[in-house]
């Protein structure tokens, strides 16, 4: 019965706009809050193995949807339900501790992403090899270059064996060589029947990878369905 991977029912996400660093004193003095709705009453279902694209202009709530699915933030109202291990490629570098060595960070990160310790130990070799960090793995993280951090971050995520993968835009990671490796890995995910939700501005990429596309605008679903049709309607809307 359960062939669903993700279900969002009536999801609304309200953010409070803060103009400066919030303080309690200020709040007590002027209690007013400016609200901003990133998502309004979104309902959608994604089946297992489906590859879904989310498109829309900036500020339409695309990343918010990914965050909600990843469980990083909770909806203001409505329900988000996911089945299986969700892994997001939203912020690869986040969660690394600069004082720790690469290896310790792999463990820390892997555990945060829901892997067991022995699972990480088993995969450690492959993770390090894939990242191409090499002998720097024993060096503290603050000595790493940006590219190395990204590569290690991606490598950990890629080895978590997720059921649902969330891809944000700009996931082109590292140099030419590593980019090819990472795209190969992502393609591997696609082919092994994982559920994929991706956000991108590259319409060709979306069309090539996804079957279904949701078009968001101002926090609402404006259109959804067959990738090709939705993308062409989306493109047309700009030509007016």
């Amino acid at each position: 019965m359960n062939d669903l991977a993700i279900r969002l029912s009536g999801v609304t996400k309200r953010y409070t706009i803060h103009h400066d660093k919030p303080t309690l004193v200020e709040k007590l003095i002027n209690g007013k809050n400016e609200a901003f709705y990133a998502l309004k009453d979104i309902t959608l279902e994604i089946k297992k193995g489906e590859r879904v694209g989310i498109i829309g202009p900036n500020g339409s709530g695309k990343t918010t949807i990914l965050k909600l699915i990843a469980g990083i933030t909770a909806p203001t109202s409505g329900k988000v339900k996911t089945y299986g291990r969700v892994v997001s490629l939203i912020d690869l570098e986040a969660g690394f501790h600069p004082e720790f060595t690469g290896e310790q960070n792999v463990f820390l990160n892997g555990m945060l992403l829901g892997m067991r310790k022995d699972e990480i130990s088993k995969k450690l070799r492959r993770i390090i090899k894939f990242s191409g960090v090499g002998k720097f793995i024993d060096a503290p993280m603050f000595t790493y270059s940006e590219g190395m951090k990204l590569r290690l971050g991606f490598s950990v995520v890629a080895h978590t064996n997720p059921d649902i993968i969330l891809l944000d835009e700009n996931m082109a990671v590292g140099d030419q060589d590593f980019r090819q490796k990472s795209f190969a890995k992502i393609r591997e995910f696609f082919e092994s029947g994982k559920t994929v939700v991706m956000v991108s501005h590259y319409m060709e990429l979306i069309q090539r990878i996804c079957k279904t596309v949701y078009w968001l605008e101002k926090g609402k679903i404006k259109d959804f369905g067959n990738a090709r049709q939705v993308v062409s309607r989306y493109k047309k809307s700009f030509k007016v």
Partner: protein
Amino acid sequence: MTEKELKARYKNTLFGFLWIVVNPILQMVVIGFIFRLFIKEPIPNYYLYLLVGLLVWNFFNLSLTKATPSIVNERGLIKKAKFPRAVIPLSIIFSNLINTLLGFGIILVPLLIFKTISFVSLPGLILGLVLLIVFTVGVSLLTSALNVRFRDIYFFVQAALILWFYATPIVYSIGVVPRQLIWFWRLNPLTSVVQLFQNALVSAPPPGLAMLMVNTFTICLVAICGVIIFSIESKNFDDWI
């Protein structure tokens, strides 16, 4: 599992548990020297009395100052993945607790030499420890959760801790407090916690029953508030950091 790793992580960032003992000893020497000039009624074993109080206080003080900004400091982790957010402040308190217990292990030596320790009041000591942990966890959850929304909570905590130190019978005994003002110490849950430790370890008088009841009630209340507020606020940490 996540917790284990995070605990290890914070253990590494501490300077090593030696400081947990060296620090209060230094404080003890300075405060002990100065306060003896002012205090009218001498407290028996004043230096040991101080040391016990300071160890208890330092646990509370250090936990709170490190846990309060912890959620904001770990925004990288919060933004990365879904995991029980309470792990962050709790791991700080936990590693702190281990250090403190090691500290108590070390001062056991002088306590045994001077034979101030009374094994009859061991249940009191355990009660004191439980109350201390519950209270520290409760307050830390409360302040760390609120600090995400209101960044001035941290400054408030820092200021409050300085006053709180003198509002707790660490450098003096509750006996010197004027009778009309005793209600103020009843409001401070740490009063009987510290007294329970002092009673068991340096044979100071135990807390009065009324004091103990009121303090225990306050501690439970604070802890419940902390857990509830943390669990409500933790859902939306990502929105605020």
